[in-house]
């Protein structure tokens, strides 16, 4: 047993065994056990004090609710505790490095949260008279101007609500352009690299296109020969959806040739701009022959991911596609800025893709981020993001298997080559990272690399933090090679152990019911 100089025991063994797993309360130190609101709340309770109703006779015309919802309420202290306790079971950027490749988990500046909450932004209605919201329209215009200049593109659709929605904007614009050319029915084939994010083929399919996959070359880029062979008969080609930098974290070095090939074939070039963080301020996609590209404001421009959203996916468009942009869009008039909201005023537009005018709450945050960095700072963002990724690549090269040779852009990709014959798999490495206090990297994506591990540190990590992370991951890699069995059952130190996903999908329980509660009590 270890003792410090004052005789205070410093090891748990002094108290007779670990005893960390079983407590009467179910809590473990700072980690509080917390039931569902349906178990701890009550229909008699509420956390709001509202004015007394007058007792007016209702004018619902008899269309009234039959059974009450039965939903429980909590008073404010109980509710705050409920959510704070739950929050402590989450990993977050504010806790540590969040190396989820393709997701760009960078620091979310708090100034952005503050400005988004100014009453002049948070408390304005999308349908109030436009003369009363000129400042909001100016925000959209100012952000749009930055996005067009950073990409060197002549137009931008601001309404898309996330990356996938931006893809939809771009592909619908392409569809409209083809229809205008009289080729809407003949040009249906969209080329999509195998390494593409799932939203790319899903979006193209949603627009009625047929997906034709192009292979990756041995160096992780598009296989140019395969692409050319798919363009031999190109009369049915609508375009290509290419991610650049791509999902392997590499710049498509033949990108201009690809753009030329597609244009010569009569198609359009959709670029997935999810990885813009690697090149902002260093490369403008408009200089590469791109026709449409979405920008994830929730990646490159730091709006918080919020546990799954919301996002925002403004989509820049080339002159060829600009006429087909969705409504609404802003025009300048003598009386100030104004939305064009209806198809009749913009007959070439492919139409509307959501209610109102896009993710204003993300626009204010992204604009604050952009103004904070400025043109010089944004260039530094890209350079530091790429430097950090290459540093990780260099440090882990000796113990892991880089998927491709050479430098990477903003993310470092490894295969599971170093795990051969160890019995340890990519998922075990990921779960091992959890025990080391990190969120895992993106695993098993992109599909072109076996057992892929995609690590994106972003520019908002210090060198000390990167070193700590590399040391931890290197130690896991060494344990894997030594076939450490504990990796197979990791995590051991997280709020939950590995969860049974098969069971969840076999007989789905998607909501709480009194029966599930009974079941639990019986267990």
């Amino acid at each position: 047993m270890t003792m410090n100089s004052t005789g205070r025991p410093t090891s748990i063994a002094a108290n007779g065994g670990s005893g960390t797993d079983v407590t009467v309360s179910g809590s473990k130190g700072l980690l509080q056990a917390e039931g569902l609101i349906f178990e701890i709340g009550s229909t008699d309770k509420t956390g709001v004090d509202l004015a007394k109703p007058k007792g007016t006779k209702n004018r619902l015309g008899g269309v009234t609710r039959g059974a009450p919802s039965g939903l429980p309420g909590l008073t404010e202290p109980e509710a705050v505790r409920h959510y704070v306790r739950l929050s402590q079971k989450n990993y977050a950027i504010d806790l540590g490095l969040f190396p989820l490749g393709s997701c760009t988990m960078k620091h979310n500046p708090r100034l952005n949260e503050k400005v988004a909450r100014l009453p002049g932004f948070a408390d304005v209605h999308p349908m109030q008279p436009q003369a009363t919201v000129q400042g909001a329209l100016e925000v959209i215009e100012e952000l749009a101007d930055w996005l067009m200049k950073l990409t060197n593109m002549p137009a931008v659709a601001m309404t898309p609500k996330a990356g996938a929605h931006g893809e939809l904007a771009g592909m619908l614009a392409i569809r409209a352009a083809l229809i205008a050319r009289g080729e809407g029915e003949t040009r249906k084939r969209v080329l999509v690299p195998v390494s593409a994010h799932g939203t790319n083929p899903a979006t193209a399919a949603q627009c009625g296109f047929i997906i034709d996959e192009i292979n990756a070359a041995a160096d992780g880029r598009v296989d140019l020969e395969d692409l050319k062979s798919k363009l031999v008969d190109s009369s049915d080609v609508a375009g290509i959806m290419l991610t650049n930098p791509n999902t392997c974290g590499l710049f498509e070095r033949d990108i201009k040739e690809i753009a030329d090939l597609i244009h010569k074939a009569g198609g359009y070039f959709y670029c997935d701009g999810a990885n813009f963080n690697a090149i902002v301020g260093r490369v403008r996609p408009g200089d590469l022959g791109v026709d449409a590209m979405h920008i994830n404001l929730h990646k490159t421009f730091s709006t918080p991911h919020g546990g799954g959203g919301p996002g925002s996916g403004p989509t820049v468009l080339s002159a060829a596609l600009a006429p087909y942009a969705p409504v609404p869009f802003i025009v300048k008039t003598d009386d100030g800025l104004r939305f064009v909201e209806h198809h009749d005023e913009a007959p070439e537009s492919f139409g509307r893709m959501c209610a109102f005018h896009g993710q204003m709450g993300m626009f204010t945050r992204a604009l604050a981020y952009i103004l904070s960095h400025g043109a010089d700072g944004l260039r530094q963002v890209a350079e530091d993001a790429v430097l950090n990724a290459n540093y990780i690549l260099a440090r882990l090269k000796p113990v892991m298997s880089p998927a491709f040779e050479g430098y990477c852009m903003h993310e470092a990709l490894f295969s599971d080559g170093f795990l051969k014959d160890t019995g340890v798999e990519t998922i075990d490495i990921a779960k091992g990272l959890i025990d080391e206090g990190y969120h895992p990297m993106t695993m098993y994506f992109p599909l072109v690399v076996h057992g892929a591990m995609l690590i994106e540190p972003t520019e908002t990590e210090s060198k000390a933090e990167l070193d700590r992370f590399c040391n931890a991951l290197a130690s896991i890699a060494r344990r894997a090679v030594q076939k450490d069995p504990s990796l197979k059952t990791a995590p051991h130190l997280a709020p939950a152990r590995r969860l049974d996903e098969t069971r969840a999908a076999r007989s789905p329980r998607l909501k709480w019911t009194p029966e599930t509660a009974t079941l639990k009590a019986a267990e």
Partner: protein
Amino acid sequence: MRYLPLTADDRADMLKTIGAKSVDDFYGDVPASARLKGPVAGLPNFQGELEVERHMTKLSKKNRAASDGPFFVGCGAYKHHIPASVDHIIQRSEFLTTYTPYQPEIAQGTLQTMFEFQTQVAALTGMDVANASMYDGSTACAEAAVMACRVTKRQTVVLSGGLHPHYADTTRTLCEAAGIKVIQLAPAVDGELELSKAVDDTVACVIGQSPNVFGTVTDLTPVGDAAHPKGALLVAVFTEVVSLGLVKTPGEMGADIAVGEGQSIGVPLGFGGPYVGLFTCKSKFMRQMPGRLCGETVDADGKRGFVLTLSTREQHIRRDKATSNICTNSGLCMLAFTAHMTLLGDKGLTHLATLNHEAACDLADALEAVKGVKVLTSRFFNEIAFETAKPADQVLAALEKHDVIGGVRASRLFPGAGMDNVIVAAATECCTQSDIKAYAAALAEVLR
């Protein structure tokens, strides 16, 4: 730069470790003609917090906030009070700065709130299952139409004349791209039941809204009764979720799919977004739903836990065969919704709905008492349409001079539909008696 932790020395050290001369080495694959030598031209350089905040505040002051005075705009977004604790909860680092819960061992917080949200939404709508959110009500509506076509293997959808026109347009955009025919009924204050006549055995679904965009509350049961024998589905839409505290639910009306906007609970007006789309359906259609779903399971120790489930519907697994392309959804707005709903409980929600309805009754009475005003909505929750002898744009502009933001002109919703003199106005718990009096007084002045 306050957001960039690397020092010049760090950068030099790291380049040395990597064995690169400068960061330019990393950009070697960029075509020479596309390499920028310095920052993008024509844009300002970095600024401090003070300067940025000053600029943004200045822009925000050019907008008239809903709380600045009498305010009666609705039509799909509603001014409600949000408890201070809701904003505190969603700003917790562990909720705000985390990702989609793909690693459930360290995301039980998000996952449990999703599970609670799904349960709340199902109970509110009276439906079997709810997903973990869509972008907003309009995209949820469009996805519902496409899903109904998948379920019925038919290619025609019918939209009511009271469906929010943005929802109708969004649905048309998505449907037309997917080769689905859209039949739209003429705008009507009280026309939801017309859907019954438009259904035949080629129709995948009929989409009706209650309360509709003119505020009219309709029992859609007869529409469902007409649709079901023809093999068509009933999709029920709502844009004011607070109404479900008092109004007959989509489930009670026999809806197969129910979708709507959740903004009214927990999410600020925010000039139109981000909001939170609610998506629900009957159990038997569960595997055809778009979006993320959270389900209950156990961990390796046998303890209850939650995971994302049925992902074989989704784009990251199914790619071009996915039920939707949605990936990022409305996570944090979902959290705001569920936290606010937890504070309300059934008791608070019913109470809140009652206050909204009473405010709208008062508004209807006050406006009807003004000479030249005709209220068009006979059954309503918190929103009404009314007509005067003057063009609505002039009336609203004149009201603005009295600092009353009086609503939305129907001609902005349905241009060219001959509704130039109609205004749609909403009243919520935030409207005081004096606001309502100010509206009536200003309107009397304007119409004189």
